[in-house]
C-alpha cells in the first residue's frame, strides 16, 4: 500500500504532522491533567524566567516546562536529584519534536503526599456526605460575629475593616488561633468550639490569608473539618485566594474566596440598607400623599352631598312650598270672595224686591213718631201736635200730626186695597 501514494494516504509537512500530534495530545482527557512523580534533573531557569527540568525514573525521562508566570508562583526550588511531584498537561514541542509536561504545580515528593492526603480526605468526607449536608443559613442582620484567625494576621484586619465599613452594628468576638503549623488544627478546633458554645453568636468566620499548600494545611485537617460540621452556628470560610480550595471550604456553610469576601457575605451592607430605607420613605410619602389627595376629593364629594342633604335645602324647599300655598290660598280666598260677592249681588237683588222701599216708591209712606221712632200703625198712637217723620220713596220729611179723623173704614180699606195707597197716607 505504501507504494501507492495518493490512495488514502498523504505526505505531511513536518509542522503539519506536529500540529496533528499536538491536537491529539491536547484533546486527551488523561494527558490534560497529570500528576507525575520523579527525580529532578537538568533544572534551569531561562533569562525571561521560564523554568526547565527533567523528571525521570530508572527507565524514562520527560522534559518539564514551567512558564514564567507559573515559575514565579512556585514556592519550592528543587535541587538536582530531589524527588518531586509535578502537575500539568502533556503537549509537544514542535521545534524539537519532544513531548513535554507543561506544569502548573511542582511540589517536593512529601507534599505530593499532602495532595494525595488532601484528595483522600476530600473523597472520604464527600462520600460520608459532609459536603452535601444541609447548610445553615446566615441571619440577614447578624448581631454577633465570631472570628477564628490569628490576631496578628492581615486577614483579621481585612475582615474588621470590611465589617466596620459595611455593618458596624455587629459585635465581633475574636477567638484567636494559630492558623499554620502543627498546633494550628487543634487551636482552630478549640476556637470554633469556644465561639459555638456562645448562644449570642450568629455566625463564625474562619479566615486566613493566602499561602502555600503547606501554610494552608491546617484547613485541610480532618479535625478542623469535623469541628466545622459540628458547629450549630453557621461557619463561613475565607481561606487563601480565590483559587485555593481547602477541606474546610468544602464542609463550611458558606465558602468565600478571601477573608474580605467572608466578611462581605456575613453582613449586609449599610449603604444598601440606607438606600432601601430611603426608598421606603419615598414610597410611604407617596402613598400618604395619594391618600390625602383621595381623602380631599372624597371630602369635597361629601360636602357636596351634604349640601344636597342639608336641612337648609329642605327648609328652602318647604319655604317655597309655603309660598306657593300662600299664593294658592290667596287665590282661592279671592275666588271665594268673588263667589260671595256674586252671591251678595243676588241676595241684594232679591232683597230689593222684598224691600219696603219698593213699596214706598209706589207711593206708600212710613210714619214714625218723632220722639221714639216708633212706626205709627194706629190712630191711637198719635196725638195732635206730635212730631212725625214721614219716609217716602226718595227721602224723609218732618210733619206734625193734626186731630184724629177716625175714618177707620178708610184705614181698613187701605189695609185691604192695593191700588189707592197714596190717598190714604196719613199726612
Amino acid at each position: 500500500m505504501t507504494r501507492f501514494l495518493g490512495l488514502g494516504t498523504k505526505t505531511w509537512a513536518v509542522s503539519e504532522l506536529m500540529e496533528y500530534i499536538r491536537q491529539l495530545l491536547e484533546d486527551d482527557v488523561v494527558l490534560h491533567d497529570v500528576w507525575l512523580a520523579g527525580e529532578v534533573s537538568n533544572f534551569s531557569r531561562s533569562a525571561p524566567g521560564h523554568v526547565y527540568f527533567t523528571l525521570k525514573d530508572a527507565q524514562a525521562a520527560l522534559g518539564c516546562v514551567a512558564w514564567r508566570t507559573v515559575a514565579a508562583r512556585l514556592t519550592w526550588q528543587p535541587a538536582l536529584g530531589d524527588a518531586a511531584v509535578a502537575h500539568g498537561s502533556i503537549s509537544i514541542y514542535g521545534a524539537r519534536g519532544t513531548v513535554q509536561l507543561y506544569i502548573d504545580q511542582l511540589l517536593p515528593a512529601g507534599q505530593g503526599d499532602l495532595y494525595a492526603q488532601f484528595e483522600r480526605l476530600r473523597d472520604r468526607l464527600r462520600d460520608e456526605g459532609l459536603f452535601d449536608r444541609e447548610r445553615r443559613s446566615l441571619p440577614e442582620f447578624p448581631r454577633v460575629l465570631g472570628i477564628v484567625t490569628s490576631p496578628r494576621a492581615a486577614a483579621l484586619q481585612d475582615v474588621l475593616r470590611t465589617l466596620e465599613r459595611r455593618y458596624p452594628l455587629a459585635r465581633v468576638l475574636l477567638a484567636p488561633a494559630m492558623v499554620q503549623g502543627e498546633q494550628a488544627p487543634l487551636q482552630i478546633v478549640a476556637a470554633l468550639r469556644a465561639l459555638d458554645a456562645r448562644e449570642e453568636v450568629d455566625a463564625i468566620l474562619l479566615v486566613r490569608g493566602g499561602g502555600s499548600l503547606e501554610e494552608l494545611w491546617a484547613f485541610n485537617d480532618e479535625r478542623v473539618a469535623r469541628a466545622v460540621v459540628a458547629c450549630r452556628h453557621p461557619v463561613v470560610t475565607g481561606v487563601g485566594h480565590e483559587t485555593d480550595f481547602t477541606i474546610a471550604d468544602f464542609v463550611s456553610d458558606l465558602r468565600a474566596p478571601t477573608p474580605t469576601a467572608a466578611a462581605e457575605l456575613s453582613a449586609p451592607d449599610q449603604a444598601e440598607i440606607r438606600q432601601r430605607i430611603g426608598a421606603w420613605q419615598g414610597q410611604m410619602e407617596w402613598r400618604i400623599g395619594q391618600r390625602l389627595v383621595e381623602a380631599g376629593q372624597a371630602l369635597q364629594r361629601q360636602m357636596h352631598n351634604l349640601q344636597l342633604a342639608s336641612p337648609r335645602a329642605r327648609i328652602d324647599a318647604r319655604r317655597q312650598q309655603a309660598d306657593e300655598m300662600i299664593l294658592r290660598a290667596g287665590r282661592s280666598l279671592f275666588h271665594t270672595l268673588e263667589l260671595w260677592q256674586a252671591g251678595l249681588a243676588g241676595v241684594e237683588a232679591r232683597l230689593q224686591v222684598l224691600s219696603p222701599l219698593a213699596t214706598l216708591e209706589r207711593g206708600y209712606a212710613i210714619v214714625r213718631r218723632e220722639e221714639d221712632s216708633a212706626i205709627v200703625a194706629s190712630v191711637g198712637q198719635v196725638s195732635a201736635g206730635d212730631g212725625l217723620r214721614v219716609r217716602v220713596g226718595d227721602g224723609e220729611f218732618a210733619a206734625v200730626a193734626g186731630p184724629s179723623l177716625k175714618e177707620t173704614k178708610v184705614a181698613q180699606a187701605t189695609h185691604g186695597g192695593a191700588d189707592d195707597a197714596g190717598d190714604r197716607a196719613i199726612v
Partner: protein
Amino acid sequence: MTQETEPSFEEAYRELEATVRRMEAGDLTLEEALAAYEKGVRLARRCQAALDEAQLRVQQLSEGEA
C-alpha cells in the same frame, strides 16, 4: 449600652418593612394610613440613627475560653 440598639435596629427595620407593606396593601383607613406613616417615619429615623451611631466593637475571647 449600644447593645440595646442591636436588636432594636433589626426590630425597627422589620417593623418598618411591615409598615411599608401594610401601606402598600392600601386597605387602611385614612386614620390608619396616617398612623402607619408616622410610625414608618419614626422607624426609618431610628434605623438611620442606629447606623449613624454604630461602631464596630471587637472583643477577644480570653485564653481560657479559646
